[in-house]
């Protein structure tokens, strides 16, 4: 069972006939709700690493991209750069029962609360509801 602040990895699944790769997300809200007539019970933002220094510089120009890094660096298969960011203006709506995921950890509460404060002040957002 997951809760607010947790980081989860959603397993591969098929969207409109295409198999999409495994991605990591931070849970923002885990209460039931409805969007466009569809029920959801979890809302989250996606987490990304940087493809390189150029990508990092480009992404960090946007205040909505929250820079983060793991406390323990020894957590990935390769020696990839584990610095990354949370894409804070893009919201994924899922239904827990229809989603295969694993909880792998959490975001520190001080960073999480700063993220929420930023989101509450956004003017425009992007919704992803095709998983419902």
């Amino acid at each position: 069972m997951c809760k607010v602040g947790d980081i989860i990895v959603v397993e591969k699944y098929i969207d409109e006939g295409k198999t999409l790769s495994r991605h990591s997300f931070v849970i923002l809200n885990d209460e039931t709700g409805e969007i466009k007539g569809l029920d959801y019970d979890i809302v989250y933002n996606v987490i990304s690493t940087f493809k390189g220094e150029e990508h990092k510089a480009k992404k960090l120009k946007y205040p909505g991209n929250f820079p983060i890094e793991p406390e323990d660096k020894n957590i990935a298969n390769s020696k990839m750069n584990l610095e990354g960011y949370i894409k804070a203006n893009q919201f994924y709506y899922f239904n827990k029962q229809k989603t295969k995921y694993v909880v792998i950890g959490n975001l520190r509460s001080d960073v999480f609360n700063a993220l929420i404060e930023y989101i509450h002040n956004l003017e425009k957002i992007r919704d992803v509801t095709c998983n419902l």
Partner: protein
Amino acid sequence: MNKRMKKKKLKSKGENNMDAVVMNNKYNPLNMKILRSKESTTISYEESLEDIEPIDWSDEVLSGKQKVTFKGSK
């Protein structure tokens, strides 16, 4: 101030400190009413992930043997 009052005052201060610790660890969930009041556009899952580079987690992380904690970065 007598001893009883001093003790009571110290206890209150300690309780306040504990409250502060609890407050600091509290996760304030996203307020969905605020979120739904914003101008929004709907995009596909694929489109939303086109510039996202996923992390290749180790087997220890994916199996739950090793927990990941993210902090802020500069």
